[in-house]
């Protein structure tokens, strides 16, 4: 079943596509399929786009007519069979994370405050396959599906001025990865040796809307080993197909 989204103008050169206001994997999947279909089909006039939970925005080059493009978007929506024509090839990326010192700055505090042992936190954090809803907030920063309530923990009262790149954190019921060194208020439970935003690549962000990830616990020696391989370019990330 295709749900009809609302398609409207968003500023001088923008078009906004809105699905019902819900954070829902099915709605998000359809939004992502339709967005990629349009980005591909109208590559000559779409300069940039943004995907979020249930909305995406398209930014057209200034010569294109917004009104005419909206009409074409609606027409395409009525014609296309999204599930048939748009194969997203969803992939699960294995993200190695070292949940040990000196990386896991706040894991003890969570353990003590929630009365849950550190190995249990790691187990709960690495079990699910998290959907990547979209990339926002900062270059390469993934908005992931929610974590188990067992390990949810409020944001730090005062943010750190520097959080190292690759740091994996928890804020409320969200978990995420800092792709670049930046200030941040998330509770840091580990660090990944991967490079999540590489400006040398055509698509700098490692993760994209519609991908899936699973965290995998590694020890300090493995972290250092992978870090070396990432730097030399010899590391290849483990991926597997995603089945609904």
């Amino acid at each position, binding site marked *: 079943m295709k749900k009809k989204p609302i398609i409207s103008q968003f500023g001088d050169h923008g078009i906004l596509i809105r699905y019902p206001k819900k954070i829902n994997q099915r709605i998000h999947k359809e939004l992502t399929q339709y967005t990629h279909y349009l980005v591909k089909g109208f590559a000559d006039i779409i300069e940039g786009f*943004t*995907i979020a*939970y249930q909305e995406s*925005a398209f930014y057209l080059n200034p010569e294109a007519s917004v009104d005419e493009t909206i009409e074409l978007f609606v027409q395409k929506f009525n014609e296309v069979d999204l599930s048939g024509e748009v194969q997203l090839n969803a992939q699960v990326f294995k993200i190695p994370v070292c949940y040990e010192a000196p990386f896991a700055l706040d894991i003890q505090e969570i353990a003590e405050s929630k009365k849950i042992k550190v190995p249990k936190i790691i187990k709960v954090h690495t079990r699910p396959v998290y959907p990547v809803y979209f990339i*926002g907030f900062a*270059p390469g920063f993934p908005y992931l599906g929610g974590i188990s309530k067992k390990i949810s923990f409020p944001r730090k009262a005062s943010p750190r001025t520097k959080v190292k790149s690759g740091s994996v954190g928890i804020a409320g019921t969200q978990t995420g990865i800092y792709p*670049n*060194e930046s200030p941040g208020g998330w509770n840091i439970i580990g660090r990944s040796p991967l490079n999540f935003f590489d400006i040398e690549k055509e*698509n700098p962000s490692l993760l*994209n809307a519609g991908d899936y990830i699973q965290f995998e616990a590694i020890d300090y020696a493995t972290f250092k080993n992978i870090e070396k391989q990432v730097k030399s370019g010899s590391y290849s990330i483990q991926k597997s197909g995603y089945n609904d």
Partner: protein
Amino acid sequence: MIEVLQPGIHSTIQDAGRLKFREQGVAVGGAMDQHAFILANHLLQHTEIAPVIEFTIKGPTLYFYAQTFIVLTGAEFHVKLNDKTISHASPVYIPAESTLEIGHVKKGNYGYLGVLGGFSTEKVLESGSFHPTLLPSAKLSKGMQLVYIKTHFNNVNFYARVIPIHDKFCRTKLDVYPGPEFNSLNEEQQQKLLDTKYFVVPSSNRMAIQLGNMPKISAPEIITAPVQPGTVQLTPSGQLIVLMRDAQTTGGYSRVLQLTDYAMNSLSQCEIGERYEATFHLI
């Protein structure tokens, strides 16, 4: 080549920004007043639009090793070239071994300096614009050197100059579209939003401009959704925030209005304080 003798308060390299990487979480960035940035390029008769230096509050002091032409656009500053005043919005010849001192701002907020042929600066993701993590080196610092290529020219004739309209810096009428959440406000709230005379509050920066003299209206948070430069957000505590060039690509506040590109350029130059007013005009 230019050597930066004093960097000023916040002087950065800026251009049209990074338009193609928003879905990867990359802010657009670019010159706050895009009109002044394009104008600087046109006045120098550039066929290819080149990056400029943007400065605010107090500009940089620059030493030019080789001769060139420059142009200043956008906000007007107290400027001295080898201790003599020079004209605004008109190409100026810079002899070799000159010192250009850009002092405090006179009118507006953001000033621009373009150099003939453009600066040859590093680009990351197709733009030379400053970004705190992607391109931190595009912020001017003491002793930094900036390269311009064109130092030999014969009979350059610049025909155009521009007479700036000072009024735009103190009374700003902003053309807006209704935003995606405009209709979740009731009619009375919509009227209040549109009828108020706002002013720009001092905490404003390249990410967002906050407006003062708020009517008593507020709006709930939304599920994080796309935003862009010019998106006007109304917060649960009743603040009105206009996102500017360095804003994030997604946001969680109600998007009540959306500025036109033209209005965004005007707002960027609207001076801080209660003496200066900004109003919205629905188009």
